[in-house]
């Protein structure tokens, strides 16, 4: 690392140093097959890392093992040693290697090539079997490959349903090892599905009288053994002591500066682009991870622009623009080899990639990793960081985004290094998922009594399936009578099977698919839907045909749905007391109605107005949840300040904390608050509810219940130590909520706390904004321009304000001339006054105590008099 960060010192919040350590080696084990020994020596490997040896021994001893060492610690060899050892003894055995993505399987296939070349096709044959594999290659793999690289979807949709056909039976009857790489990816709904796919796999293996051994790898998470057991239904040996040498690694947290005087920070991409020229000039090789394809393009373009203008290069010389390149999924083998070669020879300084490439894909030696924003989980973070430093010291720079997790990290950098925090959660017994797999399993093999041990809800499901005519009792076994391919009824990664197709209006092409809840929340009419970094506006949401019609658009705002939530408690399972509150875990029914949306400007999150939605978009979800009771004294004060909805602040903070604990993403867990539960009869209480976003729950909140008080503490820390002054989207979800109040609300659950004085005299904080075109003093001169702008934007009060011809500024107030006493009174009515003030605050830079007033009412009295006279006349007739 030659680049010096000194000149960016002011932007650097913190630097975490990961110490180098030397490797822990052992000599090649005696039991190692002689040919395998010769192979390793031919690869210049004369000793193994301790974890590789452990894995080999686990393999030899018939143990199921999970390895959680860092990326680039030689995991491929760790897996392959016990496997190849067994293959050399009997080339007829079969090994399934399951990777979460196609790209990763392809990449791992490349890593195996030295083995294949060395041992020859008579001994080791391998192949990637996925949706893209052509038929003749498929049949070759089924017939001859002993290493079969595939993904969960293929296993679920092709291997298992066809176990008796096309030669799959041979694979199952000879299955000796099942390798699951990147186990931590199997969390949430995907993980729950995976656990059931493994149930089906083991059931089919049992039929073919095979008992495969499991070898797993995972990034560092808090509960690798628990997750492995949940997914594979076996007990695992944990191999977590990394024996590979570690070079020194520095992790730098980079806080982008504010834009001018505004309270808004620069985007991570912008900051990355500023640093890249330095890296290029100093010859440091790097990879930049961006959140989406569009961000890649932005960084690439900005970095190139800057590189072209680097001083000291004669203009006639080729500029430095082609020293950086994009690098994304979907490149062919050759293209990738080209890029890697260029990186190695120095023709290329760095690549800019999307997150999609993080999973185990090897790009060669790099010194620097730039991360534009924190990737949603820590596991991903470390994986991205691990791309550099395979052969020397390295640097990782995390450019923080404004999101709550990023800003939390800014304050609690030990979150990154503390392994005990992220739990990968699945609920393998989720009824919906289980039932889907019971049906698939029944179509694979008739259900026998033994299956009751595999699927815990089998006893309840069979009578229903019998009633639905999908099963038939034949001599005490249940045979599938339903449709041909029940495994096709659902997908492993999509939560619900009611998928909506997003279709481009002009081209008719399908952009993506989404489930119903996502469609309701993101694709209501006029919503701005963002996919792959491109913006679309929703023209129509067709509920009947499940189609979302969109067209391309380029606007500077995004839309946020306004969701009304109804909560009904079905039953509570467990409850625990906090010092001044209680937390309950149970089944709830949450009905969400998307009633309106707001338009929010990009980057500064300025609210551009609300629109209501005419479609009835209701979704009911029966799921698991935990609910925190809000202490009555807090609720009382919150209720008196209803205009601010402090509940939302509590909800935001608790949800953020809970998500970090359970590795839940925005698709896994949500939160709301509710009051006055009928069931409880007694005093009206208020609660913050955190719930799993999946029918019957996926175990996120169940896990959160175990950490209820830790989550509360985290939430308090999160709000307390946020860098903002009054409250911001990062800590309390909004600029309009006073964070001291929110913090007090949270703290009151933990201990009796004094209400902050602000609560009594609390006033609306000024909404900060970046580009206000008007200042109060100039407003009288620019009034016409101002009201025209309002009308153009469709602001509701625009027409009314345009009607007012004259205004005056008096110190901190704006005086409107209104030609009617009644109208003046009407305007000054509390609600209306506030609305007008709010609208003006949006667009005009005003002092803190800004208010409006009404003047010049005499002339209007005359009109009133005239009306009164006419009225009297009428009375007299």
């Amino acid at each position: 690392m030659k680049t010096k960060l000194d000149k960016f010192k002011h932007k650097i919040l913190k630097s975490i140093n990961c110490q180098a350590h030397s490797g822990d080696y052992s000599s090649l084990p005696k039991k190692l097959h002689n040919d395998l020994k010769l192979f390793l020596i031919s690869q210049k490997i004369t000793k193994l890392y301790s974890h590789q040896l452990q894995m080999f021994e686990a393999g030899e001893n018939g143990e199921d093992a999970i390895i959680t060492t860092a990326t680039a610690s030689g995991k491929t060899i760790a897996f392959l040693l016990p496997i190849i050892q067994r293959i050399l003894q009997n080339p007829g055995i079969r090994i399934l290697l399951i990777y979460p993505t196609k790209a990763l399987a392809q990449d791992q296939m490349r890593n195996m090539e030295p083995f294949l070349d060395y041992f020859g096709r008579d001994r080791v044959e391998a192949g990637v079997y996925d949706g893209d594999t052509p038929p003749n290659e498929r049949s070759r793999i089924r017939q001859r490959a002993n290493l079969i690289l595939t993904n969960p979807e293929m296993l679920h949709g092709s291997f298992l349903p066809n176990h008796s056909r096309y030669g799959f039976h041979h694979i199952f009857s000879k299955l000796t090892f099942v390798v699951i790489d990147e186990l931590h990816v199997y969390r949430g709904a995907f993980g729950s599905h995976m656990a059931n796919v493994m149930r089906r796999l083991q059931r089919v293996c049992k039929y073919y009288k095979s008992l495969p051994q499991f070898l797993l790898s995972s990034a560092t998470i808090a509960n690798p053994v628990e997750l492995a057991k949940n997914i594979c239904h076996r007990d695992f040996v944990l191999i977590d002591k990394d024996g590979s040498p570690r070079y020194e690694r520095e992790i730098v947290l980079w806080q982008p500066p504010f834009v001018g005087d505004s309270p808004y920070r620069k985007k991570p991409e912008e900051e990355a682009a500023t640093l890249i020229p330095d890296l290029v000039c100093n010859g440091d090789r790097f990879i930049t991870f961006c959140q989406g394809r569009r961000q890649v393009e932005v960084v690439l373009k900005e970095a190139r622009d800057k590189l072209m203008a680097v001083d000291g290069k004669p203009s006639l010389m080729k500029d430095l623009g082609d020293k950086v390149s994009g690098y994304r999924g979907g490149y062919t083998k050759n293209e990738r080899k080209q890029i890697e070669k260029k990186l190695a020879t120095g023709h290329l300084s760095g690549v800019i990639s999307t997150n999609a490439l993080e999973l185990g894909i090897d790009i060669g030696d790099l010194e620097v990793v730039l991360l534009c924003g924190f990737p949603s989980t820590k596991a991903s973070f470390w994986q991205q960081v691990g791309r550099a430093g395979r052969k020397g010291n390295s640097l990782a720079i995390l450019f923080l985004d404004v999101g709550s997790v990023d800003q939390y990290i800014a304050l609690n950098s030990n979150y990154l290094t503390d392994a005990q925090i992220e739990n990968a959660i699945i609920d393998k017994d989720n009824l919906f998922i289980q039932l889907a797999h019971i049906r698939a399993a029944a179509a694979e093999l008739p259900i026998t009594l033994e299956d009751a041990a595999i699927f815990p809800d089998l006893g309840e499901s069979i009578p229903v399936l019998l009633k639905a005519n999908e099963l038939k009792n034949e001599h005490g076994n249940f045979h599938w009578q339903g449709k041909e391919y029940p495994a096709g009824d659902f997908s492993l990664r999509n939560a619900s099977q009611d998928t909506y197709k997003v279709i481009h209006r002009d081209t008719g092409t399908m952009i993506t698919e989404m489930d119903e809840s996502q469609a309701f929340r993101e694709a209501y009419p006029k919503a701005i839907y963002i996919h792959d970094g491109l913006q679309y506006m929703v023209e129509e949401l067709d509920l009947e045909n499940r189609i979302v019609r969109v067209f391309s658009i380029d606007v500077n705002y995004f839309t946020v749905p306004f969701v009304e939530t109804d909560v009904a408690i079905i039953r509570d399972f467990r409850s625990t007391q906090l010092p001044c509150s209680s937390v309950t875990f149970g089944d709830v029914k949450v009905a969400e109605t998307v009633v309106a949306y707001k338009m929010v400007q990009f980057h500064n999150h300025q609210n551009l107005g609300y629109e209501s939605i005419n479609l009835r978009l209701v979704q009911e979800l029966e799921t698991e949840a935990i609910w925190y009771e809000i202490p009555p004294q807090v609720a009382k004060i919150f209720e008196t300040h209803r205009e601010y909805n402090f509940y939302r602040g509590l909800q935001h903070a608790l949800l953020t904390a809970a998500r970090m604990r359970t590795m839940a993403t925005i698709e896994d867990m949500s939160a709301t608050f509710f009051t006055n539960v009928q069931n409880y009869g007694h005093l009206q209480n208020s609660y913050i509810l955190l719930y799993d976003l999946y029918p019957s729950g996926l175990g996120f909140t169940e896990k959160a219940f175990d950490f209820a008080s830790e989550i509360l503490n985290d939430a308090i820390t999160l709000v307390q130590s946020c860098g903002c002054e009054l409250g911001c989207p990062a800590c309390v979800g909004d600029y309009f909520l006073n964070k001291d109040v929110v913090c007090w609300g949270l703290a009151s659950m933990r201990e009796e706390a004094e209400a902050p004085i602000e609560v009594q005299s609390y006033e609306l904080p000024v909404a900060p904004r970046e580009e206000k075109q008007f200042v109060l003093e100039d407003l009288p001169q620019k009034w016409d321009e101002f009201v025209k702008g309002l009308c153009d934007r469709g602001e509701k009060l625009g027409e009314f304000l345009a009607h007012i011809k004259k205004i005056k500024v008096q110190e901190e107030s704006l005086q409107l001339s209104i030609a009617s006493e009644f109208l003046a009174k009407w305007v000054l009515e509390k609600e209306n006054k506030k609305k007008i003030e709010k609208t003006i605050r949006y667009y005009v830079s005003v002092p803190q105590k800004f208010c409006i007033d009404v003047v010049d009412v005499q002339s209007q009295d005359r009109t009133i008099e005239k009306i009164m006279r006419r009225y009297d006349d009428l009375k007299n007739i």
Partner: protein
Amino acid sequence: MKKLNKEQQQAIAVDEQIVLVKSAVGSGKTTVLTHKICQLCEDGVDPGSIVVLTFTRRAANEIHRRLSQFVVHSQSLEYCGTFHSVANRLLRDYFDISVLGFSRDFSIIEDRQRSEILEELCFDHNIRISKRELRNFPGNQSSDKTKLLQEEYATYKKRNNIVDFDDLMIYLNELLALQPAKFSWIIVDEFQDCDEIQSQILNKFVDHGAQLFAVGDPYQTIYHWRGSNPVIFEDFANLSGAYTTELSLNYRSSANIVEAAKELFAPHNKVRAYREPGTPVTIKKHLDAFHEATYLAFLIKSLAAQEIDYNQIAILYRRQVQREEIVKVFQQHDIPFVIQRQVQLSSIAVLDWLYNLFVLCLNRKNLFAKRMVFSHRKYGAKKEKRAFLKEKIANFSEFAQQYVDEDDIWDYFALHKFLSPTSASFEKDQQLVLTFLREILPDKSRDDFYHVLRQNILCRDYNLETVVDKVDGCRSDGVQLMTLHSSKGLEFSHVFIVGANAGNIPLQRQNLEEEKRLFYVGLTRAKEYVEISYTNSTQLYGATKDPSAFLEELNPSCVHWEETDDTQTDLKELTNMVKESRLQNQTSQREAFHEKYGTGMVVAEDENSFMVDFPGYGEKSFSKVFCPLKFKETDEN
């Protein structure tokens, strides 16, 4: 002697020159036939002058077996056997075949050898002919090329004193026209299967003064595709001195089976059931062939538990490929089975390859064998392996000079290299090779391998069925697996006809009437129970997911067609149903207390009322509005 019924007695008693017995299925055809022979012997007819003709070795053996129970010495029936075996004997012993240019010690070649010879002739005489034409040779259309080949082939055979199977019939027919043949009776079994040349042969016997006693069932004509004459009964009935009689009483199957099957040929089929009604014919639908086989595995286990012998159960299929799934499943479930089949060497790729390797070792100039060994799609040898194999073939004579066992041979050729050890087929191929070698290598022979090879392999003195049966793990007392065709003439207590999907039964593009007769044959094999199944999805070429049209033609009053409602269910709906039933279960666990009745369990609940069961008082219903009950929730947690 078993008591015969009136029809049977009458059939035997007739003394016309031509007696045609149209015998319905299961009506005791073989019984009548054997009784006739006994009768003749008792009447003083010389057994040596009786010719008994069958179509299968199995049927011939059955006749021998039954006759041996009577006084008659079946050995004295010199000319009793299949058409071909009898012809073989007649050509060697009875007629003078030298007029046709052969000597009595001619040898018979199998179809495979025949095609090898044809290939070689094409090669030697530069006759360009397609593989397909070669397979169908001589075929219907005769081109110049096929004519030339035919001439060359005929010359070749005479020069080498060999005949093929077809020749046996042709030469018998020719010699019958040229030379006298004094036989008193010709007895024919399965008369309906006679083809054109066979009926000519029978005609000629009759012309020479023999009496003909032919038994058969026109509804069991299933070899039309092989040239059998569908109107043979009519043809012979029109000859002078012909008498036709019928056996119509079925003793074999329970009445439901007979009545159900009979309907296929209503109103002509006159078969009548003798037995009690029994169980109706069952029709079932399964998900696919695997589930069909799995279902059968479970069912057969429960039948075995009811002490029904495995070999009294038959599974019949239209196509050989259907067998694979059944074998696979039965192996998993440890159900013993035996496969009725005939195996051609060419149908077992690895043995075919190995055979050619041996041929090549003995004659390195054999181009066919060379091509086969080195360029085989699966086992062919390339690059280093090619050189290796060439060397082994060159040094073979040295290796073969000693006594060897199967492992020596395996190692000498390093066969594991050629059988691709990673492949799914490796294990089975290995077993086939080793079993095959064990089969051809005599137990305690001190002969060198060269000798053994010449003797056993080239002369094909081995039984391939034994080899494949061993590898498949067949057991003679197991469930009988066979095609509908091979089931003819057999009977079982339980019969399962699988894969009765449209497009498979009847098989696409086949003669519909014949397919129907074939299905009829299958159905009528059963004594007690028939179950027919079709599958919702099928891998069989040309088959659809619909049931066979023949199923509709069975007599509906004798058929139990299991209802198969098409289900349209939604995963979400099902989940809700499970939840509801869960809640219902919970209500049923609720305890209710009543002042007078004490504590009871809630058994039902609807919008307006509870139903509670009180011990001693029975079920009481209470309105929800005025409910005098107190509830105690039983919480699982």
